[in-house]
């Protein structure tokens, strides 16, 4: 069925060609949000400038630094770090930790003038890629310290705060923690209840509240704590909450933590509740501005998301190696496993997944390094794609290893236990999907309605939403052997844009509640961005004549075909009446089961 016939006449909601002056502005810099590919696809725009050519923001010198660091940290993991023992003992070996600190591993992101190494995002990504293949629990502990914990100082700290805290955090003398989550506030960060009330002397905030599931909660001396500062607006009795970020030192007194949580994985990582009981926090310790807390919280998370994709890159590379080693030698039914088609498919899936995750991780990190503004959608897409795909690859790796995959001695089970939470923390996949879809759609609605009110020309009904020149431009950006794949991608982008347009017309602002639809919009947008990243990377490989360009071309073209299948499936499920009636049914089923508080069926044998 051609669901495009459902879309309303283009005169009402049409893609507007930019006016000449806007076009000129766009040429001058590719860093602005108007060039975001992810935002653009919601508005029938194919913004390729931030993706093609694949960015390479590091200088030779920066790359040399990373190579040296990789050598040293590589040796640390091979010779000193014992992930198995750490998992069994549910803690980190202190001697190994000391060696790690001496290597500089806790100061990777702090600027050099504060005792750190000032690594750029891409340098950090390449370095922690190594960690992802060795120990996903350790990765979180050191990530919580620098990528979350003291990242707040880097993004919002003033000179005094940076000078006071960064040196000891970089050296690892003190550990940092990021304290946002509470028993009643997970994805809904705004609903936190910890309070910070300005004391009568006006010099301190009195902090009260409970945080849960805090990494390094029992070990950190430096915490970034998010709390509500109540204040009443002038001339009113109404109390408003201004969520604010605070730097809290354990030494202030009143800070206690629970014993470490017993977890499915990340066992060596210290995860505790942290209790704040009338803690006196000096007013100088407000991080950012009063009332800016939500923005601070979200931006810290945004800024660190690429790192999770980088960890998943190293993780899936290890899974691929481990899987191949097994299927190359294990024999059954008189043949090596690699000779069987069903095995080949699984290996190919892991290989393509690794390539795609890596492409997205480094596309985002390089864009961050060259100053692209506002990568929130792309970072979220990267996080969802990387963590979910890595989970599937891990599951598949265990399957390939068979019974051996289930045995602790082969280590994959530990990685699986560790990686499960990666889809939950730092932005649960489900919430991030809604965020991606609503942000993209809202932005599209805003831009389109602005231009609609400014426009004096009316485009005719037959104007295609993505112009053929957009499509041609995309095709020109990719290497010649990849053009058929680029054409597939372009088609999906066009279809996506039409569906978004249709939804806007049908639901208007109520689209924000249509989660069945938004999930699928998000799924499609994720696939589109990842495809673009993959094509850009493979284009680079072909243009640079890399020794691996043939294989990369094969990975890219195959990936795009499969990814387009997934996009079509998602878009179809938004448009097809059968699918839509399923959504209604989902709500009914959920409602009935929820009222019954358990399964609402009769057993086959009657009891």
């Amino acid at each position, binding site marked *: 069925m051609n669901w495009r016939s459902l879309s309303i006449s283009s005169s009402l909601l049409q893609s507007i060609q930019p006016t000449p002056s806007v076009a000129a502005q766009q040429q001058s810099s590719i860093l602005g949000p108007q060039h975001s590919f992810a935002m653009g696809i919601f508005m029938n725009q194919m913004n390729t400038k931030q993706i093609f050519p694949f960015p390479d923001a590091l200088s030779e*010198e920066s790359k*040399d*630094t990373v*190579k*040296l*660091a990789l*050598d*040293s940290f590589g*040796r*640390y993991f091979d010779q000193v770090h014992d992930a198995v023992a750490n998992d069994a003992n549910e803690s980190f070996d202190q001697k190994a930790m000391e060696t790690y600190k*001496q*290597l*500089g*591993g806790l*100061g*990777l992101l702090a600027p*050099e003038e504060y005792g750190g*190494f000032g690594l750029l995002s891409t340098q950090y990504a390449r370095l922690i890629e190594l960690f992802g293949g060795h120990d996903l629990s350790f990765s979180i502990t050191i990530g919580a310290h620098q990528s979350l914990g003291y990242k707040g100082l880097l993004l919002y700290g003033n000179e005094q705060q940076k000078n006071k805290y960064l040196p000891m955090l970089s050296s690892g003398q003190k550990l940092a923690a990021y304290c946002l989550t509470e028993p009643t506030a997970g994805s809904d960060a705004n609903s936190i209840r910890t309070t910070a009330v300005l004391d009568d002397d006006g010099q301190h905030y009195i902090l009260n509240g409970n945080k849960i599931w805090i990494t390094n909660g029992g070990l950190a001396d430096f915490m970034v704590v998010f709390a509500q500062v109540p204040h009443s607006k002038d001339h009113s009795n109404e109390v408003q909450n201004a969520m604010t970020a605070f730097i809290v030192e354990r030494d202030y007194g009143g800070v206690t933590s629970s014993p470490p949580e017993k977890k499915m994985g990340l066992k060596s990582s210290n995860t505790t509740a942290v209790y704040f009981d009338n803690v006196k926090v000096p007013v100088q310790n407000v991080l950012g501005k009063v009332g800016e807390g939500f923005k601070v919280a979200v931006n810290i998370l945004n800024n660190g998301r690429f790192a999770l994709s980088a960890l998943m890159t190293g993780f899936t590379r290890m899974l691929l190696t481990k899987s191949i080693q097994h299927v190359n030698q294990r024999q059954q039914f008189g043949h090596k496993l690699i000779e069987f088609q069903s095995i080949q498919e699984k290996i190919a899936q892991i290989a393509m997944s690794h390539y795609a995750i890596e492409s997205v991780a480094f596309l985002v990190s390089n864009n961050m390094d060259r100053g692209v503004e506002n990568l929130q959608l792309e970072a979220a897409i990267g996080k969802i794609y990387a963590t979910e795909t890595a989970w599937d690859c891990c599951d598949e790796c265990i399957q390939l290893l068979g019974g051996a995959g289930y045995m602790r001695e082969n280590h994959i089970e530990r990685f699986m236990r560790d990686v499960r939470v990666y889809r939950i923390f730092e932005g649960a996949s489900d919430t991030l999907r809604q965020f991606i879809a609503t942000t993209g759609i809202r932005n599209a609605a805003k831009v389109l309605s602005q231009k609609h009110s400014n426009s004096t020309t009316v485009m005719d009904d037959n104007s295609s939403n993505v112009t053929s020149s957009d499509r041609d431009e995309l095709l020109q950006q990719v290497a010649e052997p990849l053009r058929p794949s680029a054409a597939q991608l372009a088609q999906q982008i066009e279809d996506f844009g039409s569906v978004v347009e249709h939804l806007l017309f049908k639901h208007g602002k109520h689209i924000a509640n249509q989660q069945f639809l938004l999930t699928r919009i998000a799924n499609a947008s994720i696939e589109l961005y990842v495809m673009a990243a993959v094509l850009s990377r493979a284009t680079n490989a072909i243009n640079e004549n*890399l*020794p*691996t360009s043939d294989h990369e071309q094969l990975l890219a073209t195959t990936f795009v075909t499969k990814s387009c299948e997934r996009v079509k499936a998602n878009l179809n499920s938004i448009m097809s009446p059968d699918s839509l009636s399923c959504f209604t049914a989902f709500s009914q089923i959920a409602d009935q089961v929820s009222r019954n508080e358990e399964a609402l069926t009769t057993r086959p044998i009657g009891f």
Partner: protein
Amino acid sequence: MALRVLVGCKRVIDYAVKVRVKPDKTGVVTDGVKHSINPFDEIAIEEAVRLKEKKIASEVVAISCGPKQCQETLRTALAMGADRAIHVEIPEPQSNTLEPLGVAKIFSKLAKEEDVNLIIVGKQAIDDDCNQTGQLTAALLDWPQGTFASEITVEGEHMKVIREIDGGLETIKVKMPAVISADLRLNEPRYATLPNIMKAKKKKIDVKTPADLGIDISPRTEILSVEDPPVRQAGSKVEDVSELVGKLKSHGFI
């Protein structure tokens, strides 16, 4: 006497890489393959840096001969604690035919230019396994040599060297200036910490060419072909000694 130490650092294919022979049999595949500092040279650098830390040496200069990427190797040496580095730049494909004699000539020239009294090299490189450079350098300079060193101790103007030999350990005394070649058990090299990697960025790498040093590095040998070792043939079990003898005879071994 404060020693001035020269250390040779060769850039080789990393020990963990699975080496592949090129289809045209002219050599092994190096494109896109991970390279690192020759492990024995790393031990040499470590020993030199330890001498500096004990205040026996006053300066450690690292040298590498080869294409531009050798500067990565020198950065490792600097990050481990060498004070300065000299890159003798020899572009590919010329660098592929560089032989120990050429390197030894370069080291002896630089030793005189830099006024050093101790040269430490790895006992051999893991790519060609020549085990010649240290010995040739000592001969060219007419200096004593302590090769396969597993322990060195400076005693005034002399150095006590414990050497690993087939029969066990041999202890010799050499008068400095001398050349030492490092064996595996001499020490365990440190990792370069990020603080040291950062400090190393400020250290100097001087670039010279063999021509600058007036040295002819043309090879004396020609590589005819590089091939994989033959695939190991399966063995067969024998019932008793007489069958064994019979098989050995029939295969012409006895």
